[in-house]
């Protein structure tokens, strides 16, 4: 039997290792952010947010078309995907005990694991090829296909967290089931549902692959939903792979904006849910 001292010391060493593990896990985040700051911050100026692409050789260009494009297509994805996702989530939490519920839940988990490049190919075949043109609508739809499974499962979890006593109380007061669900249960879970949506939106805002074969990209500033549109991750990727240092600098700046946007959304979401959990 090992001595007590040895066991204590071993335990301390292991504890220290877990501290080290936590540091090691977080390190890439710090390094990535630092890298983007160093390489990209210099190129961020007012023009970057307001102007679109200019011909190579001219200065004063920016990523406005890409930033706006991302905002538009993410909004489209929300418009298409949030009603379906939240509806599915509520369905799973309230009526999801049976076979259909099991199937839908399983499918949602599977779809969460499907590579986004496969979604992209699928969206091209169904939304671009038949219509004969690339479009922001197709891009938004492809992003929605990624959004829905995430939102469905987070919504389900949040709605499930609402205690049954609330449901029973509402029913006991004479509410019909649908009113009880909407006005009591969902309302209570609302901040959690919103959190789940924000997390999913953050994820979707950073996706490149689904937009490759749907929105295509656009040199010009465009808000037309029925035509090609630029997007932030796409533009970053294309400029990073271009020949000019000028383009590389803009790509880094674009990446910095993108990661700031995504991290900000994620942080807000998590702040909301933690406040909620502390309240509840």
């Amino acid at each position, binding site marked *: 039997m090992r001595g007590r001292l040895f*066991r204590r010391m*071993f*335990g*301390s060493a292991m*504890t220290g290792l*877990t501290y080290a*593990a*936590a540091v090691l*896990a*977080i390190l*890439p*985040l710090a390094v*990535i952010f630092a890298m983007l700051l160093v390489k990209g911050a210099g190129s961020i100026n007012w023009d970057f947010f307001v102007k679109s692409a200019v011909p190579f050789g001219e200065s004063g260009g920016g990523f406005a078309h890409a930033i706006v494009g991302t905002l538009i297509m993410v909004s489209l994805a929300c418009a298409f995907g949030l009603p*379906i996702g939240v*509806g*599915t989530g509520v*369905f799973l939490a*309230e009526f999801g005990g049976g076979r259909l519920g099991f199937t*839908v*839940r*399983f*499918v*949602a988990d*599977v*779809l*969460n*694991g*499907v*590579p986004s*490049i*496969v979604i992209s*190919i*699928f969206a091209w*075949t*169904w939304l671009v090829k038949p219509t004969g043109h690339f479009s922001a609508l197709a891009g938004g739809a492809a992003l929605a296909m990624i959004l*829905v499974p995430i939102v469905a*499962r987070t919504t*389900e*979890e949040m709605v499930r967290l609402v205690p049954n006593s609330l449901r029973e109380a509402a029913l006991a007061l*004479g509410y019909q*089931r*649908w009113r009880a669900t*909407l006005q009591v249960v969902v309302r209570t879970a609302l901040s959690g549902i919103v959190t*789940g949506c924000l*997390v*999913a939106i953050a*994820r979707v*805002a*950073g*996706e*490149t*692959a689904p937009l*490759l*074969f749907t929105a295509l990209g656009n040199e010009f500033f465009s808000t037309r939903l029925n035509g090609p549109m630029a997007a932030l*991750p796409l533009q970053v*990727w294309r400029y990073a792979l271009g020949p000019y240092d000028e383009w590389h600098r803009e790509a880094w700046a674009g990446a910095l904006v993108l990661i700031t946007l*995504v*991290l900000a959304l*994620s942080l807000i979401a*998590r702040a909301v849910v933690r406040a909620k959990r502390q309240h509840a």
Partner: protein
Amino acid sequence: MTDLSATVLEPELAPRSTAEERWRALRTVSRGDVVFRALLTVLALFLPLLLLLIAVELVSQAMPAVHKFGLSFLTTSVWDPVRGEFGALPLIFGTLYSSLVALVIAVPLALACAVFLTEFAPKWLRTPVATMIELLAAVPSVIYGLWGIFVLIPLLRDHIWPVLRPVLGHVPIFSGVFYGPSVLAAGVILAVMIVPYIAAVSREVLLAVPSSQREAGLALGATRWETVWGVVLPYGRTGIIGAVILGLGRALGETMAVQMVIGNRHEVAASLLQPGYTIAAAIASEFSEAVSDMHLSALFLVGAVLFVITVIVNALARLLVWQVARGSAVGSTAI
């Protein structure tokens, strides 16, 4: 309860008591309820429909390649677009190999983080650290790829490997010259990307372990560490395995970051230092340029293979996690 005498004697004249109304409300399903449930069901059917359509599309586009190559598609290594011969063995091998490397690195790291967050971290540190680990999951893949090219690969090749070579150079899986782009680089990036998922789910699993178990361990004289290792982790074993498999599922499908660092070579090699290829990376690289129909069909077929692999892996993961968390979407907040 109900004033039965009133309803029996004078149905029209007897006042409807509020109790009876409530009873009716509880027993009958109003039209609003029917519509509500129908609406939600229709919305919920979207997902299975989508999955079905994707599966059908993949399969139908892959058929020409299936007819031409049959099972040899999975066992041959030649990928020759000029001659129209396609063998996906290197892709499948690379996908599994890089994911395995990622797991070997990520699982101990993520489990240690989960243990840290649930057992050892001081209370004020838990939330910030957990938040930062979860934020890793939000970083877009394309940015990981850029980091891989400009930071990770030079670091591995110029600083870490030269130090390790005298020791590891003779081991078969570390044989050969290390140029940078390699299965190892891809494995490391994948590991960084899946740590948050495994850590988040494992943390939920460990939180679900009843404190009575911990207390029992301590009462028997175990140190805190021994309790964790000998009592808590085994208790959560099923859920943790589920978390690991979930991480595996994510690693299998990761595209952009892998494609930028793996070296993109259609070849099966035992050494981690050699370039390789994964299914997702190959599709991303070649899809928009695939000019011949057979090339396109081969890419769809390999996409279908990946689809099947991820379905099986995800199903396995969820089944195991459900056993622990009884059907709830544990860990979905990390997604």
